[in-house]
């Protein structure tokens, strides 16, 4: 029984997987993330996060055919499961609620 909360980075990775839809694998996710987050990222971190997501049952993976550009190795392609979708929606709902709850004047004094 592992902790099954969705971490912040996990959420971002999960979203990226969803966004890449049918081409979500290690390198693609890594590139997408480092572009969006504008900071260098290591494959290891992405990799471990995706493994964790799979263990939690939030993504599902399958292997592609071997590909020449990859030195004859296959890709592990990830897709979001129903549980994953639900977790994402849940996270979004919480965020939306929180955003909605912020009073209009909350950020006023900052400017």
């Amino acid at each position, binding site marked *: *029984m592992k*902790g*099954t*909360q*969705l971490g912040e980075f996990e959420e971002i990775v999960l979203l990226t997987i969803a966004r890449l839809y049918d081409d979500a*694998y*290690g*390198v693609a996710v*890594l590139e997408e993330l480092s572009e969006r987050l504008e900071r260098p990222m*290591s*494959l*290891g*971190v992405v*990799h*471990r996060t995706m*493994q964790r997501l*799979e*263990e*939690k*049952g*939030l993504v*599902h993976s399958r*292997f592609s055919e071997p*590909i020449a*550009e*990859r*030195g004859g*190795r*296959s*890709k*592990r392609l990830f897709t979001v*499961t129903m*549980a994953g979708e*639900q*977790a994402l929606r*849940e996270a979004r709902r919480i965020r939306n609620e929180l955003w909605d709850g912020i009073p209009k004047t909350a950020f006023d004094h900052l400017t």
Partner: protein
Amino acid sequence: MNRNYKRQQETEPPRWAERLLTRITAPHIRDEVLGDLYELFQRRVLRYGYTKAHLLYVLEMLLLLHPRLWRQQARSAQLYTKPTEYSLPNPMAMLSNYGKIAFRKLIRHKSYTLINVVSLSLGIACAILIFTLIKYHLSFDTFHADQDRIYRIYTELHTDKVTYSTGVPNPMGEAFRKGYSVAEKVGRIAFLKKRLVTLSPEKKFEEDVAFADPDFLDIFNFPLIRGNPQTALQDRNTALITERIAKQYFGDEDPIGKLLHIDESLVVKITGILQNLPATTDFRSEIYVPFGNLQDHSPWLVEKDWWMGFNKEMQCFIRLKPGVSAAMVDTKILPAITNKYYDKEYAKVFRFKLQPLSDVHFNPKLRGYTEKKNLWTFGLIGLFLIVTACVNFINLATAQALGRSREIGVRKALGSERGALFWQFITETTLIAGVAMIIALGLAYLVLPFVNQWFEIKLVLNPLTDAYLPAFLLVLLLIVVFCSGAYPGLILARFQPVLALKGKLSQRAVGGFSLRKSLVVTQFAISQLLIIGTLIITNQLRYSQQADMGFRKDAMIILPIPDNKKSKISTLGAQLSEMSSVENVTFFDTPPATESIGSTPIRFDSRPKAEDFTISVKSADHQYIPTFSIPILAGRNVNPSDTIREYLLNETAVKALRLASLQDVIGKTATINDQPGTIVGVMKDFHYKSFHAAIEPLCLTTRSEVYGNCGVNVNPANLGPTLASIERAWKATYPSAIFTYRFMDEDIERFYKLDNMLLRLIQAFAGIAIFVGCLGLYGLVSFMAAQKTKEIGVRKVLGASTSSILWLFGKEFIRLLLIAFVLAAPLAWWVMNEWLANFVYRIEPGAGIFVLAVLITVIVALLTVGFQSMKAALMNPIKTLRTE
């Protein structure tokens, strides 16, 4: 070709890294990881060029290194339909479940639990006592403020050998105080043992009295609870006493202003009360008198500012200024004092050094109580006992593990993880160890008074006031739990559920018999080590106490005499001699064997220089030789006269003078203690110290002014009445003193007091180690017997005799025991030789002792094994076989 190869290289990631990754990556993610890295590499070569891509590849690889990389395929993904309701297990609930199951298990296996609890609690109780003992000794005199700056100046005499004394010449204190500013405080003190303290004619006590400089109480932390610390010990004829003494002497009366008579010669007025002494101090005087009063009380100690003599009681303590190093004082200041106050020849002989306060309790050369070495020996023994107890635990647990395999199979099949099973087992161990610890504490409390009696110390066991004890207990508990629980726990948790459920686990799965064998060997080896130690110490002590010391020691009574005026001595002597049951009466300073005897230079005949050895001097009257039956080998006994100086040497002294025959010394002069005299005879060598020390040159002479004891040779038949009449005669001569006497053999026993304590302790520990070991054996054999019931049944049906079945059990253990002996014997031999090296006259540990040790363990082990195996062997085979 070459270029082509290079091009090829530039588009490929580093081969070594790929190979390394292939090796360590779990198979199910290997393709993915290598593929991803490869793809990234290709992109980066295009983007940044080969070198940077190469570097980044290695970097990515390093960042991938994580257990997830080589962990085997994860369990299949579980689907959570409601991810928001992910629930965490409640750890407290699990813990209480562990506890409940552990408790039930332990109740079910009563004998198993009992054996473990008993052996653990014995081991832990010993460990607690040893810990308390060690801590007690280590805490001696550590309560003084700035104790690391307090030193005692001691004397080293460099003659042909080096001798040490706690005392310093009388002028040392003043010389140090006046001439050198490195010390904050300098305190001279004279510790006089067993002085007669009189309140009134009826109230007499014997007490140690210290004559001290006012600085002494400043250096040491013995606080005054009444009286003025500024003026304490300043004015003459005052005294400070402890609360305890005040209570004993005066009860509820106010002691301040009361008078005390010390040895009848000195009258002092009590001006202050000291707080009771803590148990952990070596400075046990409870009456303090100003140092100046020494002049009136014992003028011989301070008669003149004499640098040539010193006395062990006359000590000097200093507290150095902060930042002053003891080494500097040792190498600069004390040699400077020697050079200033001694001529060239004596400056070589007299050397002074600083002894740190922390060393006072532990330095045997300077009359310290014990050596640290002994403490560590005890520590080691304590560790041994704990190990033995833990070994039992592991052995029984692994032996029992097979029996529990079904339980574990079921638990695993129901989804228990390996970790959970491990913690389950640890909980069981903790429960046993916890119970054992509580019992052990109780045991330790019960035994403590006896230990205190044995060692004549005051150990206190109070976890509430002593922060170290609970910490020690906690650490001990953790160690015990993990030492004894971790291995069986791991074994149990590793069982394959299918095999376990089928009951198909073999003995090998629980760590095999080999681990248990080696543990049993360890246990036996520890027991044998202790047994051999016990036997050797017993033999040596018996040898020391019963051996011929060269003089008569039975039926000798020694009476300390408070006053050696000639008239008194002769009256007492005459009265005692008249009694029919008294054979001989002699007056002397020290009995034949004594720990405290000084030595002094000797000049022989007309030789120009003093000899290069020193000689010990005994002062005694002419009756000494016949009373103690010391044979005269040449010449004659000394004359009764006190005025004509005559010397009687021992053989060793004659040998040291390098003379051909004993006759050669007779009639020659010798100068000893600056006093010339004639050598009239040679006495046979006798042991005038304990067997710890070698016989050295000795001389006997008459000097009635130093006599302090009277030796009476009595007829042992009517001891009671004889003692009574001796007391009457004594009282008639010394009406105001307290009559005390002791037997000579007790004196000799006292030499070996520490050794005797060591013996008793090791005996006790050896007994416990053997007992605990046997408990373990008993348990082990019970399990073996239970497992082998069917085998035994079959053997019996096929016609095996009872004795052959007994042998089935016995031979295994005898083999282990012999292996243990092979391990223990050399170790024991080495350790005991170290101990025996403390004795100059000693036994040689022969083969007999070792054989005896083996026999004892064999017999005890066989008795233990025998009962269970007998039961197994006698069992009706029908019963055991029918169950199939």
